């Protein structure tokens, strides 16, 4: 097997660990093996965990390009789609905890939440963005959309920014964690801005653009 295929399988398995941990926790609570497996507020815990992993996979997928540029390890690009899809996977679980645990499937409650509460509005917008990206992540879309595909998938930056804002909005007083996410995201997006500026300067001077830059 090719090295990248092995890596893909490993990353896939690793990315499922957080979901598996929650499933094991649920099993332990449900069958009375460990009633504290998901803390005293299990609904909230599952919401927090899935939200955190959504942000994590968003940022991991956004770090593929910088890692590729800095290390010249081009093959890593083959992991990007899967990592992005895992952000969508955890984002969907996260959104479903809101549907099921908080709003008990009631459309009236949910509509109310989306309209009245900015952090839900932003959260929902983030999920919709991820949904569009996941929907157009296949080869067919890439071929069909051509150059537009790349512009469309720059929405991942927006999703990252909205995700961090969403986290920040729901914190009561202790902003330590959202600050960390914001800092990490700032590095990832800052690098891209830096490279774009440098590329423009290079082109102005009449040079040729690097084949790796994207």
């Amino acid at each position, binding site marked *: 097997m090719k090295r990248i295929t092995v890596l893909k399988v490993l990353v896939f398995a690793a990315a499922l660990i957080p979901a598996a941990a929650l499933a094991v926790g649920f099993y332990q609570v449900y069958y009375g093996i460990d009633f504290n497996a998901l803390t005293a507020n299990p609904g*909230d815990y599952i919401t927090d965990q899935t939200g955190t992993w959504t942000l994590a996979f968003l940022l991991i997928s956004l770090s593929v390009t910088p890692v590729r540029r800095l290390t010249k390890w081009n093959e890593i690009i083959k992991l990007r789609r899967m990592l992005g899809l895992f952000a969508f996977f955890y984002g969907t679980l996260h959104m479903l905890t809101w549907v099921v645990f908080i709003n008990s499937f009631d459309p009236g409650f949910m509509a109310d939440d989306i309209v009245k509460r900015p952090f839900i509005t932003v959260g929902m917008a983030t999920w919709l963005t991820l949904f569009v990206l996941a929907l157009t992540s296949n080869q067919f879309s890439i071929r069909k959309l051509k150059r537009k595909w790349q512009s469309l998938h720059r929405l991942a930056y927006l999703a990252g920014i909205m995700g961090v804002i969403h986290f920040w909005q729901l914190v009561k007083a202790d902003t330590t964690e959202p600050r960390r996410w914001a800092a990490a995201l700032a590095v990832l997006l800052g690098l891209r801005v830096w490279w774009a500026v440098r590329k423009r300067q290079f082109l102005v001077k009449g040079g040729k653009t690097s084949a790796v830059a994207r």
Partner: protein
Amino acid sequence: MLIKKPSDIRSSEITPKSLYLRRREFIQASAAGVVAAGFAACSEEVGAQGGGLPKLANLKKGSPLSTTEMPNSYDHITSYNNFYEFAGGAGEGPKQNSKNFKAGNWKIKVDGEVAKPAEYLLEDFLKPSMLEERIYRHRCVEAWSLIVPWAGIPLKDVVDRVQPTSRAKFVKFYTLVDPSRFPMQRTDLLPWPYVEGLRLDEARHPLALLAVGLYGEQLPAQNGAPIRLVVPWKYGFKGIKSIVRMEFVEKQPLNTWQQQAPNEYGFYANVNPMVDHPRWSQARERRLPSFFANTRTQMFNGYADQVASLYTGMDLRKNF
């Protein structure tokens, strides 16, 4: 099956009580009506649980002010807390970060507009009153709730004892400032000390309690040791913990969370399903350990019959 056995074998001898209690709560809460009916008749003696802290002597039980709802397990009540002096959010943080907390020779100062300002050792402060168990609903502003068997003395006893002057309109409570015992006080997470307040007539209400115990034992650190306020018709943040000072004042105090976010937290903080928090609905709550926020929140947390008259003529939307 365990539970049906007659009383010659106590079910607590078969399975650790905290475990099977939690199971029932979980099933009732999560599986809706499927199993709940079969368990509805069960009732457990409060006081069989605990955390191994010293037991409180001469605790009067069976208060008519107690709810008949089944209390949450000791484990729950002591491992899911908001106590910003120990950790910046709800969860196990306060329990983990308060392991070395010692109350020591705790003193409480009563001053301001009172005939008899004084500083008391905690035991002298409590001595004139009878310790009572009060099983209350506890509703957090974050839309979760628990049933808690507190032990304490009526706040009214203390208020009457210290004889407020005619200028006293409010009671202002202060938490201890001691960064060596409260690690988060080394940060500026909140303005320290934590401050809360009640109107004098609220403080004289029979439901208002100065709690020193939980499940018949001394209060654990994460729940506000050694003495905290419990006002069951208000959101949990009004229940200031580790109190060292009660100041009787003329002007309405600026409580900590109001200072922190005046558009989100008010002075009164009465539980009110009609007035939403800007970031979430207050119409429903999650009765822990349920996964679902599907318990309807009641006006004044279900204590409307007792306390609504305190607020007649007030716009509760404005005075949230």
